[in-house]
């Protein structure tokens, strides 16, 4: 069996919430061994953010937590205690990468900044992914994905265009984007280490990464002083484009007509009047919307999509979060996978999106229970004695359950 690219790479993962855990999920998919470190007093909030009613140990029974933390190992360590810090630095000796998404000042305040980590392992790679980076006047700001989206300028570009209201993306969009960038950063630093033998400190600002997703808007602003308009679902570069309601509850289809020819194909496929009177573009777009909207209102969205696809027109269902789990294409590609979990019934989880066709990454294991691998890591990897581990337990540096767990 061909090895995965990160086979043999070990990561000490201090990340929480979504951005960092998304990054380390991808690193795990690529073969890295991920040791997820949580304090008994400051665990990953996602474990308890959406409590499942009536379950024992809710911190071990979160679908949300599981989807972004599978194939990782769990080590509890209270880094606020000296014994916790010392144990962490012993672990760092065995790791290639440390990754964290604390607020900018937290790792240094814990006394575990990059310089300290290099005393444990001189060629360590540290990936820090604070909202605004480690430097600059905004470094003290606290940021989650939707905040990052606003501060990156992306939210200013999103809106229906007729009311001036900017609209946020419907999830914490800044998080996974920063996560993917953090993976790229870690891997580039590993390439550098292989070439030079040196470690690296990556200072990643989540806001900056998301701004790289709207580069053309900065070109327009800097070259011509233009403010990119909110445009609803239309697209200036195309002949026409829109999102249309179909038959069924909240069923919608997005259709792009990049050229006049594609509009003609749509008209033919949906049996519409093809001719458009010689009117200004906005009125023409309204007329296209009206005709397509009328035709699709009573049509099944899947049938409509397939009919337009056959006509060579880009069309895509606005798949909701249930329908996407039943999409025939994703099913044919084996995208949804069910894994056993000791506390929960199986459910459809996404497999790795990076399909290495030869090495074939595959999900192996559910997310770890809290502290599940304490002994394996402390004893097996780090060589701590039973007495040393017992002392860490006595100090509550390590634990098998969070202290005072509540809602995240």
């Amino acid at each position, binding site marked *: 069996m061909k090895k995965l690219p990160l086979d043999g790479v070990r990561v000490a993962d201090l990340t929480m919430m979504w951005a960092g855990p998304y990054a380390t999920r991808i690193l795990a998919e690529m073969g890295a061994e991920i040791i997820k470190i949580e304090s008994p007093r400051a665990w990953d909030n996602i474990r308890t953010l959406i409590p499942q009613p009536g379950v024992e140990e809710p911190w071990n029974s979160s*679908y949300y937590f599981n989807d972004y933390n599978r194939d990782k190992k769990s080590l509890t360590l209270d880094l606020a205690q000296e014994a916790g810090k010392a144990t962490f630095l012993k672990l760092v000796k065995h790791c290639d990468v440390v990754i964290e998404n604390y607020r900018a000042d937290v790792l240094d305040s814990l006394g575990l900044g990059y310089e300290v980590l290099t005393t444990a392992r001189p060629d360590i790679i540290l990936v820090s992914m604070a909202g605004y980076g480690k430097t600059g006047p905004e470094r003290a700001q606290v940021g989650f994905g939707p905040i990052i989206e606003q501060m990156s300028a992306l939210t200013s570009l999103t809106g229906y265009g007729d009311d001036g209201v900017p609209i946020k993306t419907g999830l914490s969009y800044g998080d996974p984007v920063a996560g993917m960038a953090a993976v790229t950063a870690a891997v580039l630093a590993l390439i550098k280490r292989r070439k030079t033998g040196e470690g690296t400190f990556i200072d990643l600002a989540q806001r900056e990464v998301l701004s790289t997703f709207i580069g053309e808007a900065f070109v327009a602003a800097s070259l011509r002083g233009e403010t990119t308009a*909110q445009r609803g*679902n239309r697209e200036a570069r195309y002949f026409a484009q829109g999102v249309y309601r179909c038959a069924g509850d909240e069923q919608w289809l997005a259709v792009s007509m990049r050229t006049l020819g594609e509009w003609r194909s749509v008209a033919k496929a949906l049996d519409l009047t093809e001719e458009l009177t010689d009117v200004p573009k906005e009125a023409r777009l309204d007329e296209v919307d009206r005709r397509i909207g009328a035709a699709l209102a009573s049509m099944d969205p899947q049938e409509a999509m397939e009919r337009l696809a056959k006509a060579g027109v880009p069309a895509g269902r606005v798949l909701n979060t249930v329908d996407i789990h039943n999409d025939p*294409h994703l099913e044919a590609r084996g995208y949804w996978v069910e894994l056993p979990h000791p506390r929960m019934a199986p459910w459809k989880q996404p497999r790795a999106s*990076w399909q290495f066709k030869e090495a074939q990454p595959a999900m192996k294991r559910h997310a770890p229970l809290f502290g599940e691998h304490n002994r394996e890591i402390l004893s097996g990897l780090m060589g701590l004695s039973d007495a040393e581990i017992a002392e860490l337990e006595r100090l509550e540096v390590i634990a098998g359950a969070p202290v005072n767990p509540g809602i995240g």
Partner: protein
Amino acid sequence: MHEPVLSGVRVLELGGSLPVAFAAKWLAGFGADVVRVDPDSETLTPDEQVYLLAGKRRVSASFAVESLALAADIVIEGDQLGSFLRRVNPAQLRRQKPSIVVVSITPYGQDGPYAANQATSITSFAMGGIMSLTGMPQREPLVTGGSQSQYLGGLNGAGAAVTAYLGSLIHGEGDWVDISIQECQAGMLELYGPGAAVSGVPSMRAGNHVRAQWAIYPCADGFAGVCALERQTPAFFSLLNDPELAEERFRDPLQRPQHDDELQAKCYAWFADHTKQEILDLGAQYKVPFGAVMTPADLLGNATLAERGFFDTVATPGGTAMIPGRPFLGLPWTPGELHSAGQDTEEVMGEWLEALS
């Protein structure tokens, strides 16, 4: 100063799409010699070309694509499956050159019933699930601004390319990576993905208000937002400075959702009384996650981004453009110049094909 990480790495960008252009842009910035085979018909807008093509050499060489691919260490291609435009055979390339990395970024991946379907940014965004969550509940689902599905595909492609390249350095063999833009999104549906997989009930778009303390509001000079977790809610409430918020129905996270309308009304009033900067300053002071809706022009004048050297400049015929530069600090980044279409054909043919022979 160290040499760039990807110095000496040859990358061929093929297909002309935004995802491949963005993926290759990151590799160019980190030092790779990126050669873009310009498409016969350019699909990037002029502004996208300024942003995405700076730092790359450009060839018009449809006749020698297979040879250029063989001379590359990494090929990033976006030719659609079944398209007559497909110019390289990734599987064959892998057989001919075991160290090579090929990354294919397409709307639906290399197989499956939709693989040959046409797609655009909005249709890909729709099929990835995020769009169903975006927009006002009483209106149609809304695409996020710019070309987000395309950038997502591109960043996934960049990450996969360098990961496969590292694998090639370590284990001696590259790989062919199949990136489906639909899958890139379907696996990042936050809590809404697993929630629906378990419950069978879809989450619907909620506009700017997931709940009162996770929302965007009009403020005195624009729009600003708050995202307070439970641990940050007391500090947020203290700023709202409303005695009613001490009542159990607001303090108890289980009761609070039943009073969300009332809480929203208090938030509307508070935000309307404050400017963006006041809100951001209070956020830093009280550790409350506040944001403000910034425009690209705002960020061009932002002090943090200036101090951190975020923007690159690119000379264009229309003047000097400022574009987002290095995505993170810590590794050398090289801002590039903008070349014209086909400008480097002769030079690249000489260098790359000579190396091949």
